[in-house]
């Protein structure tokens, strides 16, 4: 700690941050605790603070729709995180080859990150709709037997969300990996080249392994995005057909705000919180320890 700490008025800095920290902590931890309490209450259409123990959690884990949401979460999580990481890494490595138009290409790969998931969902809903969308285009191009009904197929609609999600997030992963690659000392590459190693080998054996810290922080960021996914589902399928593409976030929203099941919604939110915390807290802990 080298920062000056013997200030003329040591109370002033604390006073300055006090209101926003107080409000911030109330917002984060106060509301988390309150939500936790709601999840142990008998609340249905209105909050009702009659204590019922873990009854809402028992209901939650016996709820067929929540099972669907959790199963979707697992499938979506693996495909979306895996896809975005793989595509992002590929684009970063390719862009790292002294490409003349790198700035333009980077802008193109990353622009989806600047727009709302609702816009993305609306656009992909139009492109993937079975009537006039992709299917129609392929018919016009002469592939008369081409059919593409994933968006309205309960078994396939989730994959549409995966595709649109990867489209939106791969550029973000690319930007993080590219920043990581640029941070590596060039003399390592030079030395390997002198030793006669081929470029793919250098990437595979030296550069990509040295991206490990970037890899983990990116994995963490993308995974928590996956767990929080809400907007894209709402815009693309609204959880449908039926509730075939429900994720925990849309399940929570439906229970808490349209089905009059506040206690159940609060329990679902707590489960989401626990999942994110399991991923993020170890990461934050190691980051802050490393900084000391």
């Amino acid at each position, binding site marked *: 700690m080298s920062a*000056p700490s013997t200030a003329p008025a040591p109370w002033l800095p604390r006073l300055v941050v006090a209101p926003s920290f107080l409000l911030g902590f109330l917002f984060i931890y106060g*509301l988390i605790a309150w939500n936790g309490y709601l999840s142990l209450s008998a609340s249905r259409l209105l909050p009702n603070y009659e204590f019922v123990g873990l009854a809402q959690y028992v209901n939650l884990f016996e709820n067929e729709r929540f099972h669907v949401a959790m199963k979707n979460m697992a499938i979506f999580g693996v495909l979306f995180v895996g896809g975005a990481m793989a595509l992002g890494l590929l684009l970063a490595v390719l862009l790292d080859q002294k490409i003349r138009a790198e700035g333009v290409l980077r802008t193109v790969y990353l622009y989806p990150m600047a727009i709302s998931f609702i816009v993305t969902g609306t656009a992909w809903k139009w492109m993937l709709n079975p009537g006039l969308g992709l299917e129609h285009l392929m018919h016009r191009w002469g592939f008369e037997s081409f059919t593409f009904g994933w968006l309205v197929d309960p078994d396939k609609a989730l994959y549409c969300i995966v595709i649109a999600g990867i489209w939106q997030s791969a550029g973000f992963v690319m930007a993080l990996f590219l920043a990581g690659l640029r941070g590596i000392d060039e003399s390592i590459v030079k030395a390997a080249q002198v030793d006669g190693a081929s470029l793919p080998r250098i990437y595979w054996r030296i550069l990509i392994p040295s991206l490990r810290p970037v890899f983990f922080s990116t994995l963490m960021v993308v995974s928590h995005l996956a767990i929080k996914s809400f907007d894209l589902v709402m815009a693309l399928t609204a959880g449908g057909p039926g509730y075939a593409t429900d994720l925990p976030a849309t399940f929570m929203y439906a229970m808490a705000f349209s089905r009059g099941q506040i206690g159940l919604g609060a329990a679902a939110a707590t489960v989401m919180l626990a999942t994110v915390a399991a991923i993020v807290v170890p990461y934050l802990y190691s980051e802050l320890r490393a900084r000391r």
Partner: protein
Amino acid sequence: MSSRPRMTWHRLLLWTVLLLWAAWFLAPLYVMVVTSLKDMQQVREGHLLSLPTAPTLAAWAKAWSSACTGVDCGGLKPFFMNSVLMVVPAVLLSTALGALNGYVLAKWRFPGSETMFAMLLFGVFMPMQVVLLPMSQVLGWLGIASSIWGLMLVHILAGLPSTTLFFRNYYVGLPDELVKAAMLDGAGFWQIFWRIVLPLSTPIVVVTLIWQFTAIWNDFLYGVVFSGADSKPITVGLNNLSNTSSSVKEYNVDMAAALIAALPTLIVYVLAGKYFVRGLTAGAVKG
């Protein structure tokens, strides 16, 4: 040795892959633009990628002022205005508070300040679903439920962790000697902030403003939960518009509406992409 021709063959393959992916990323934007310039007859007669045979802005006009979003048929205009009214104060306030917090956490540390920072940092990652139910009750008590004010307050509170993170990490990089020298000259807490730290903060101020603007403009979750009939933001308007079932689905109007919702952040991105990328990476990688 035939290393030269092999190199060019490699370059060709490299460029092909890069350009194919660029096409994949650009395709939805292209489809949105061409579809929004067609009327429904051209939409049916053409296909996703076909250029409009007779370009028209009718879909844009309808999306802006007369398309139906549920029962109302006033287009996206009122939603757009709500978003503008909400986003400006929310962005400015959360950025200003973040700058002050960051200044204290980096240059005026006190026992426990690092722990407080770590605890605040969790707010960047937590799933906001856990605050929705209690917060709607708090907003009700404060008398600002279903209003722009309530939505603004939520955005400011939810933005504090990231703005504090941005400024704190940036200010840690400013040499402590600057502050010490100023203190020897008799400058106080506020003088050092205004005269020395703030003038050096332009890049991080731009990064934070852009980050907050993008995040708040694009938010849907708070908008759909906390807004009332006449305070809904643009994302909620767009979602209602594209989910309003009418006898004929007007994809051209949907696409014009989507572009209207996307344009403000897209323009900022094109003009200041460098800062946007810096914000993205600052949020994920330690400073």
